[in-house]
């Protein structure tokens, strides 16, 4: 087996195949990064809206709670299919990358809303009380009092979550997004050895994920020793 791999290797590691794989890896990163930025915005918004107090706003709070709870209990693959067919029914004419992006934003939004909520709760109730007694609105309270104290609690799990999605976006291959996993399947279907193609794909995922994991741990350790401000 090893002999045949060595014989095949030069045929596999050509400029074109490598370019194809690297571009696909970039698509994976782009999908993850854009999805998590969008997901962070959505998740933060939902966590903040859940902190509103007006009686008239309860449907909004209920919606945020429902989205947060629902999409953390549905597999990524199912959400992906659901979004895919929903966009098809709406005839929006989006390409598969943007369909996958929408799915990632919703799921990331749900998980990050939970992370942000936990961050908000890590800020002592007396800080919220003082802000309320001084007539701060929600936006002022979050911006000037809560976030400066909560970001240390929010950042590490949010970052781990981001890294998780580098791997989870592999599922986007199922609706035809040409990301890293899809590229591996294409090369495998062309007749290249599965050991080489999927081996290379695994290696590329590892190269994206591992350094970021290390960075995340480093940042977390640094933050743990810093004081509040």
């Amino acid at each position, binding site marked *: 087996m090893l002999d045949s791999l060595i014989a095949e290797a030069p045929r596999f590691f050509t400029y074109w195949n490598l370019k194809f794989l690297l571009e696909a890896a970039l698509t994976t990163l782009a999908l993850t990064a854009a999805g998590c930025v969008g997901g962070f915005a959505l998740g933060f918004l939902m966590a903040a809206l859940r902190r509103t*107090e007006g009686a008239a706003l309860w449907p909004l709070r209920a919606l945020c709670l429902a989205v947060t709870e629902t999409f953390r209990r549905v597999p990524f693959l199912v959400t992906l299919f659901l979004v895919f067919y929903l966009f098809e029914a709406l005839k929006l004419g989006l390409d598969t990358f943007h369909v996958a992006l929408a799915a990632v934003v919703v799921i990331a939004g749900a998980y990050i809303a939970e992370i942000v909520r936990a961050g908000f709760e890590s800020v002592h109730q007396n800080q919220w009380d*003082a802000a*309320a*007694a*001084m007539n701060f609105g929600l936006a002022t309270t979050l911006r000037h009092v809560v976030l*400066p104290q909560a970001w240390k609690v929010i950042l590490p799990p949010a970052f781990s979550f981001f890294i998780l999605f580098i791997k989870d976006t592999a599922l986007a291959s199922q609706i035809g997004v040409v990301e890293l996993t899809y590229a591996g399947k294409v090369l495998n279907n062309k007749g290249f050895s599965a050991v080489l193609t999927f081996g290379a794909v695994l290696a590329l995922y590892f190269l994206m994920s591992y350094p970021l994991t290390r960075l995340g741990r480093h940042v977390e350790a640094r933050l743990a020793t810093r004081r509040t401000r």
Partner: protein
Amino acid sequence: MRHVELADVTAAYGRTRVLDGVSFGVDRGQIVSLIGPSGSGKSTILRVLTGLLKPQAGQVRVGGEPVDFADRRRLRAMRARFAVVFQQFNLFQNMTALDNVSIAPIKVGGRPRREVEAEGAALLARVGLGGKLKAYPDELSGGQQQRVAIARALALRPEVLLLDEVTASLDPELVSEVLDTIRDLAAEGMTMLIVSHEMGFVRELSSKVVFMADGRVVEDGPPARIFDAPQERRTRDFVSKILRH
């Protein structure tokens, strides 16, 4: 017309009733003190007056106007007339002393930063912290933090100042300084509602003392009567116990 008046106010945390039909009034410029054993509901009254806890029944009137706790705009208007100094200071941990004092007038009051900061520095100097403008709460002692909290409350220019156990954590040599500040404010016409265990302070400063137990007002009156000639047995027990120390 009373400046602040509570009429038959009932409030609860979850199912635990903490105020059970409380009524009393505070006149303009008056200093009223709430005393009583822990858990009697003294601090809860301050939470109701700052809108942090909604009463279940009864009425709160400020300047003769009943407060509608369901109307957020009017609740905010009521809050703007009060400032509270908390037992646990509740200083914003991410801000310097000066920022703690200036943030509300700038962000909520919409006043110019330079003017507010100059005033804030003066207020901090007045409570003896002129040299600590740039210090963060975790760099200050408990007593110093409480003085920042008093300056922060004064910066709101409130009509009514609510003091929740403010002297409990002050350094002994600074108590009189703070009392002087509070006396000045009283002379300026500031209405004050004070919760305290410091009976000397209460007796010296108050125009009226309200004794509470189990979420109810047991009796109220001028300090001389409450301390020297209490009418109720519970008041007598409490006063004799606390004065023995």
